[in-house]
């Protein structure tokens, strides 16, 4: 199967996404939404041990990666706007988990 060629608009979209500075710090996310640090870990696909370091002070503070910041920004965007997203798009973006449905 041959890959589909890109239109100018699509190429422009890729450029915008590639250079997008979208990011949200764990502190901002934590202050805005009533979530646990475990939830933040799950959003970012990191361990809770790592996430705890993002909230520490002083020498044991560790900085999240840009990927972590983008995860949180996208989650924040979804939480703010999911009601405006058409259900079929929402399903395609985050399909419900298939496991444990029929046991």
């Amino acid at each position: 199967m041959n890959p589909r060629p890109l239109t100018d608009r699509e190429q422009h979209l890729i450029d915008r996404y590639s250079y997008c500075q979208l990011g949200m710090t764990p502190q901002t996310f934590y202050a805005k939404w009533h979530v646990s640090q475990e939830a933040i870990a799950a959003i970012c696909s990191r361990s809770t041990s790592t996430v705890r370091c993002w909230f520490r002070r002083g020498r044991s503070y560790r900085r999240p990666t840009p990927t972590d910041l983008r995860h949180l920004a996208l989650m924040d965007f979804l939480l703010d706007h999911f009601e405006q997203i058409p259900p079929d798009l929402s399903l395609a973006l985050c399909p419900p988990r298939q496991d444990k449905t029929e046991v």
Partner: protein
Amino acid sequence: MSPPLIPNEQECSQMPPCISKPAITTQALHQIGYQQALKDFAFNDLLHQLKTYSDASFDAAWVALTTQEAETLAGILIQTLSANLNGNLLAAYLDATRCKTLGTVNPLTSLQLPPPATELPPTFPDVELPRYLYGDRLRWISNGEITDWGTAIGRFYSFAPHRCCWQWCYLIWLDADSPSAAWVKADIAWEDDIEPLETEETL
């Protein structure tokens, strides 16, 4: 769970129960001592200076310096000072403190600029050997909480902002019973954040 908050003296004095309670917990005593140490060793002054600093090269307000960044900078500055102690300087300061003339000593001049952050050390791969090997059983160092554990399955050399130098980072495959294994199979950790997992027989 929110990050730990350190009460200060002012808050304590505004809450009478804090003073009138007959027994002060070990934890509270530790916090009071911790705050006193920050004050005694001028750490709070350094933090304040960092947060309000402004000159042609650096403006804390302009770069929106966060508290955590200020604390990391303060830590790095103190480490740099420790690594650059100078006999002449120490002798001069000791002399000044004994003669009680501190304040007239020449200011510190031995602080050096750290190497550029993003450049791989020119000596690579002849750098410090990694402390852990593939297959080693490791866990995140605990601050009193339950931490995750697993097996080292990879490593890479990367710039560690908290140390202002390059350092080994490990990819750790989490054990099935590690707390975060419910949503993630593996995670990365800096070398100074992990330690060997000592297997404890609980039979």
